[in-house]
């Protein structure tokens, strides 16, 4: 079978029933899972060179762990990995370069026909298909193979990591000899990945446990149990078990009958010493409970947990199948990236889908991912912010070491929050390039403060705010109050920084950095004054804990008031940094066809001397602080910076889509939306090989909901200003706000907004520039576009 006939993941017709039909019995549950083709990504055929990106895209994950979609039997290029969130070990290249720990490959198995391993590259592939069921968080595979002796075997595979029970992973495989009888074996050998963590196998009855000791002192236990299910009673075949180095091998062999389907089930439970003092015992006991509950229960519970998540976070786009599929793909991975029960873990740049970025956490989490969780899974948002609370001591220490007060968060962080940004990189032309982001990209501290404020405003979670969130606001404000300098011009300058546009290093007064710092200072003052005025019982504790001097909030306001922002009221433009307007203007249209980043084409020096922008920088301010500036300002800056942005970062297209949509430029918004959607799913870039771009996926969700849907979260309710692209005939989604759940249904023609309160107390909802309405659960609320604006809400009893 030629891989060249494989279909694009995004362009699959939604009603391809034949492609998913065999999925009915992937898991041995009755009734079987119903797989909706519209909720699947299907890779038809086999293309060895694409294997790494397929593995990333088809990762099954639950926020506790993620297992790449590698072939169970592996091939020459397989890069199997199961990442355990929040647990780091010394890196392969350097002990100081921490990377996310990889567990033994629990999916690994070999199928032997008359002693010869079944392999894609030995014989003829008659049929090969991988089906990623986004709705149920499961990966299926159908493989029909003729070996060199002419024996035809059909094998199906299914795997998932449970969303209901995050410690549990499971796999089910069926083997059917179509035209022969003979000896068939399954070998299960979950071998360790060969990293710095040392593994020791322990066998006890039917259960084998691999116990690992990381270089950071964490113990991990992985308990395995597999069994064979044959319809023919009394012919179970033979079983052998061997310890092999740091792993083990179990083999089941049976005399296969013509057309007889035999099923192999494997369940795996993982614990670490971060959760329990004796992970091996906990894993064994947990695994026994899974088996005691019967073979069906965990599959059903997992599928149900996913269906529940989709009810909270699903989106429906009618009229644009690619957008629909891309959004489901995004939401699947966003849900799989987070564990709401572990507040010492955040989300790395490739989540749990690939080893690139080593699991390191950036500003991406707070700016690009958190809004999704705030709106669909507030407990998950809280745990992500708690990671920043737990790493606050490291941020304080970092600020202190650099001579500042307060807290400076690391550009890249791992388990403790210390900075783990590499100091240099060897470029592909052999040059060694110094990496300055770890030294100069400080806006991350304001970004985290921004996220805290947004979470508080949207959830009203006062216990978090008073016990932890305010600490971040205050400490980051203190950092900004010392990071810059009040200079002789009477203005507060922040020099020697890198903004989101990392093409321009060592710049002064980057607009994004300074405006976010200004915002940070003002919100910290607001927060302390609010607690003082409204929560006097808590104020004493907060003031003592943070040693807030009486004049501190006022000092923050004074500095914010004289902060240099680069804004020129005559042009409505922000100057991206001091001197930017004097740089060389290049026509980026001349470079549109390129695949390589523009700084590689132009060279670092010329790029720095030009106005070419790597990613949304001033435009990111529009995305984050829309209500702070009038529309004319957003419009002027978008029109100025958009043509100068080269989108050398995967974060950039989604924010451009968001801002373009808010400005009513639907065509531009849709173009950028699809650009963002194709980052991982394009069949021609291979960019997902090292893992999916989780922040770009979060940005895609924001582009849809905050851009096309026009949602803005405020502390007094939700404001809507939808701008659906022409092709999106309908767009529906759900949101949570301060304990309420609302459903939003938008149609393009006629332009209509319908809002329903599904759960919670009445709340305020408004259309941009229109009258607010008090939304209650007994009515639905509908408004129509009326010329340039919106009609008043019309209510209808539900």
């Amino acid at each position: 079978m030629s891989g060249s006939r494989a279909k694009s993941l995004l362009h699959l017709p939604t009603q391809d029933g034949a492609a998913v039909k065999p999925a009915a019995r992937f898991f041995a549950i009755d009734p079987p899972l119903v797989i909706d083709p519209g909720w699947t990504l299907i890779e038809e055929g086999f293309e060895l060179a694409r294997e790494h990106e397929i593995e990333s895209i088809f990762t099954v994950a639950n926020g506790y762990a993620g297992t790449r979609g590698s072939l169970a039997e592996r091939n020459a290029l397989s890069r199997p990995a199961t990442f355990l969130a929040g647990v780091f070990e010394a890196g392969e290249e350097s002990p100081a370069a921490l990377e996310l720990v990889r567990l033994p490959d629990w999916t690994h198995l070999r199928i032997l026909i008359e002693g010869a391993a079944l392999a894609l590259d030995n014989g003829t592939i008659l049929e090969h298909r991988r089906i990623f069921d986004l709705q149920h968080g499961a990966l299926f595979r159908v493989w029909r193979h003729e070996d060199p002796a002419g024996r035809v075997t059909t094998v199906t595979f299914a795997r998932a990591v449970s969303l209901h029970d995050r410690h549990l992973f499971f796999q089910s495989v069926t083997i059917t000899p179509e035209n022969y009888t003979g000896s068939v074996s399954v070998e299960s050998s979950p071998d360790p990945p060969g990293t710095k963590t040392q593994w020791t196998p322990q066998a006890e009855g039917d259960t084998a446990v691999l116990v690992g000791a990381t270089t950071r002192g964490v113990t991990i236990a992985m308990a395995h149990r597999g069994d064979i299910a044959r319809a023919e009673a009394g012919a179970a075949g033979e079983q052998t078990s061997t310890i092999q180095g740091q792993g083990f091998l179990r083999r089941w062999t049976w005399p296969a009958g013509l057309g007889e389907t035999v099923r192999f089930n494997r369940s795996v439970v993982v614990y670490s010493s971060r959760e329990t003092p004796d992970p091996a015992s906990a894993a064994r006991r947990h695994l026994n409970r899974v088996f005691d509950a019967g073979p069906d229960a965990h599959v059903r519970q997992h599928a149900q947990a996913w269906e529940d998540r989709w009810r909270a976070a699903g989106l429906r786009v009618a009229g644009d199948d690619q957008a629909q599929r891309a959004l489901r793909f995004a939401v699947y991975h966003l849900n799989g990236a987070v564990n709401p029960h572990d507040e010492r873990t955040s989300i790395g740049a490739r989540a749990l889908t690939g080893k690139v970025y080593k699991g390191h956490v950036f500003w991406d989490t707070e700016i690009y991912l958190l809004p999704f969780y705030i709106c669909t899974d507030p407990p998950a948002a809280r745990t992500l912010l708690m990671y920043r609370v737990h790493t606050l001591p490291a941020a304080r220490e970092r600020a202190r070491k650099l001579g500042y007060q307060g807290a400076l968060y690391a550009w890249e962080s791992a388990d403790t929050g210390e900075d783990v940004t590499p100091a240099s990189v060897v470029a592909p032309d052999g040059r060694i390039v110094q990496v300055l982001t770890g030294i100069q990209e400080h806006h991350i501290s304001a970004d985290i403060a921004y996220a805290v404020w947004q979470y508080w405003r949207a959830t009203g979670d006062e216990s978090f705010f008073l016990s932890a969130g305010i600490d971040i606001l205050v400490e980051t404000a203190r950092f900004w109050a010392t990071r810059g300098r009040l200079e002789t011009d009477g203005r507060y300058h922040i020099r020697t920084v890198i903004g989101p546009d990392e093409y321009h290093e060592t710049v002064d007064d980057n607009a994004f950095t300074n405006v976010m710092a200004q915002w940070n200072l003002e919100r910290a003052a607001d927060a302390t004054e609010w607690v003082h005025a409204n929560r006097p019982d808590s104020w004493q504790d907060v003031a003592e804990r943070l040693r807030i001097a009486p004049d501190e909030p006022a000092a923050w306001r004074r500095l914010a008031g004289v902060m240099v922002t680069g804004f020129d009221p005559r042009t409505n433009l922000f100057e991206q940094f001091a001197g930017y307007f004097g740089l060389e203007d290049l026509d980026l249209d001349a470079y549109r066809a390129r695949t390589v980043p523009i700084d590689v084409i132009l060279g670092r020096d010329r790029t720095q001397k030009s106005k070419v922008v790597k990613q949304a920088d001033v435009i990111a301010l529009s995305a984050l602080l829309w209500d702070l500036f009038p529309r004319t300002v957003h419009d002027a800056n978008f029109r100025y910076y958009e043509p100068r942005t080269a989108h050398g970062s995967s974060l950039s297209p989604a924010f451009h889509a968001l801002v373009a949509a808010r400005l009513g430029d639907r065509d531009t918004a849709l173009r950028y939306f699809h650009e963002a959607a194709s980052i991982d799913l394009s069949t021609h870039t291979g960019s997902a090989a090292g893992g999916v771009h989780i922040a770009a996926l979060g940005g895609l969700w924001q582009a849809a909901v905050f851009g096309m849907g026009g949602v803005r979260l405020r502390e007094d309710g939700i404001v809507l200003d939808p701008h659906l692209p022409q092709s999106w005939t309908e767009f529906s989604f759900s949101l949570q706000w301060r304990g309420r759940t609302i459903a939003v249904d938008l149609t393009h023609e006629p332009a209509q907004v319908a809002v329903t309160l599904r759960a919670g107390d009445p709340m305020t909802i408004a259309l941009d520039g229109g009258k607010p309405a008090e939304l209650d659960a007994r009515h639905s609320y509908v408004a129509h576009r009326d010329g340039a604006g919106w009609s008043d809400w019309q209510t209808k009893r539900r």
Partner: protein
Amino acid sequence: MVNGINRDSPVTGRHPQGGVILVPLDGSEQAAGALPVAQGLAALTGATVHIVHVSPQAVPIQEIREKLHLATSNLAGAVLDQRTGAAAPAITGEAQRWHSNLIVMCSHGKTDVRQGAFSDIAEQILLHTPCPIVFVPRGRGQRPWSLRKLLAPHDGTPTSAIPIGPVSDLCHHTRAEMTILHISTAAAGPAEDRGGLTAPRYMDQPQHEWPAWGVEFLDRVRAMAKPPCDLKLRTVLCTEEVGQAIVRFAAEQDIDLIVMAWRRHLEPHRALTIRTVVEQAPCPVAIHPVTGEEDR
């Protein structure tokens, strides 16, 4: 044999031992420069060098030897053939007759006045060759040739990876260093073939992305070309004009052989890179004709 191309040739073949390397000579000094390269390749692979001379009429073999200025050392282990008639069909006919693994020749011979990368005869041979051709630079002389450094420009597509597998055997055999040169110009779009990989569109954090891209690029080369497992490959990325980048790199790095896939188009304004490299490269250039999808 795929589309008439024998992929088991010494330079482009899986089985380096045996076979025939055809060397067309016309008595000119520049054509004679092909002989040391052919002999070097034959020594590496165990192939037999067939020197072929095409003339209007048959002449005694000793006369041919004198006309071609062949010393005894030139003839050691070689076969001397002659053919009559038009040069290009005679040479490609010989290559077919012997199932030649390779033709080693100069792009211009004694009677060629045409400027550019290929003479009329060379162009006709290239268009109808049943096997890869190694073009040696004009004026390379009789210096001995050996393989220490090989350069394989690769645009990231499975098609352009086709020659890499076979020559990697040769590098493995000789312990020669093999560099995969990926050139991505401002005008280069994404790879159209599935499985292709070009320079990365997004470079979020170079300290993580560049090393990862380099590993992925070589992994895909390995997947497509299947070189020996322990062969060390290195990737270099350039962004200047493709032909000039290859020529410059070959000169700077003292490359002994450049290996390139050629999609069998030689119309005006096509194969511009091949033309530039053959015309300007300081070392022999192996052209491996491929026809794209069917060759995979």
